């Protein structure tokens, strides 16, 4: 479970983030609709987390 955190320092995560295309999360705009008809804004409950389907990408 803590593998991800152990593996990457926080500095590295931030650097990686800068390099990544901006995430749609926490921004007041919907993610691009999925051509398969899956709604990225659909709310799902996974391992106790209440997430948008797009969070699972």
């Amino acid at each position, binding site marked *: 479970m803590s593998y991800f*955190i152990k593996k990457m320092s926080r500095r590295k995560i931030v650097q*990686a983030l800068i390099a990544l295309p901006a*995430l749609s999360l926490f921004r*007041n705009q919907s993610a691009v609709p999925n051509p398969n008809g899956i709604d990225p804004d659909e*709310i799902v409950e996974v*391992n*106790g987390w209440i997430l948008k389907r797009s*969070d*699972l990408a």
Partner: protein
Amino acid sequence: MIFDSYEAYKQASFKPKVCILGSGPAGTTIARKLGAAGIPVAVLEAGSREFSDESQDFYRGTTVGDYYFDLDITRLRFMGGSSNHWAGWCRVLDSQDFEPKAWAPDTGWPISRADIEPYLREVHDILELPDFRPDVPISDDIRWVQLIKSPAVRFGEKFADELDRSKNIAVVLNTYATELAGDGRRVTGARLWSNGQDAGAFTADYFIACTGGLENSRLLLWSNQRSNGGVVPNAAALGHYWMEHPTFQGGNAILANYNEFEVDASNEAFFSPTLAAMERLRILNFGVRLIESPYPNVKRLIADLACTAPDMAEWMSSQLDQRLRCAAQLYVAWEQAPLASNQIELSKTDVDHAGVPRIELHWKKSPLERRTLLEGLRLFGTTMAQKNLGRVRIDDWVSNGGDYPTNEETAGHHHMGGSRMGTDVLKSVVDANCKVHGMDNLYVGGSSVFCTSGQCNPTTTITALACRLGDHLSKVITV
């Protein structure tokens, strides 16, 4: 006037029209209203000016069912009552709390919130509250509500000088009303215990029981037993429908911007359901309280999220770098279903020093409440995600239907019901004016008259109801 003993009071030859039992928020507020209206009132207070173990011992009792606090810990027995250690969280019951809910039996009050609103200005002065802001809907399902942390007014301290100076109010300390005597229409007197012994009968034209949300039922049950039903002639509901606000940590949240919801120095924010959401899901009212998480918890939470939604966890890690406040523990306090089986009984084996049976409290949380907790957290989590305000993780014990944790807050020390208000004498004890059904001169003050509990702390509503009762009696009683 304040008398430190019943002996001292007797020397004063004061002739009260009204006798109030108990000097907590309810009793003190009613006394001040009556005193201001020129009505002579005696306030009999079982305890003294200070805490004492001897006085607290009269409050011991037992609980059957779910774990609950010791009954001598969850309240205080001296001048000012439990206001001597209340936390000061204030909010009035919502309008919807007064309305019957088709999906929850025995809900609904015979009054509406509009009936107590005229008294809220006075309540704000008494509790030293700024004005409440209106609720902020953040979705169709969830309201961002306000609880104000008042300076936690200690009624005994705040009003001691005023009560001492009053010519119309006599506060009589160390004077325990062990029982009321009645003939089925009127209370004819109160039996007193003072200085370690029986102190005879006390008479007045009117009596108001304000001994707290557990003790009112005990006093009335014992009085009724001793006078063969002469004090509460319609006693079917007496002691029943007792309620608390169960309170547990039910999850955690990662927030996009914690500051968005900051309310005050206490750093906590509160969320409740809309009536439409309660109706749709057939649940009760609840309050989700956000409490800022300590840093190690945040790391654990993000690590957990990384297993399910790695991108999201990355984003959160970056947030953590930029600002330290980005996660919160979610505490949920919820409305209890009013159940006749949650009740105060008199112990058959255990009595206090004055010979009065102690309380046996029967208390269990119901399946409807369990559903309220789970669905409430889901509603809150869904709103947070839909509005991109954050993400919520519900604790496993809540999702999986596990046992309630034993190392948690458990409840609010809010003792409600037992002599509830209503029109049906089989399901209530007092009428809309807090007068005991069938009795001409017996009233009840405090949260024992609550029909439902809502989700918020009770003392603001108790004080409003006390102002209302004081006003009503000022008009009814002629001097």
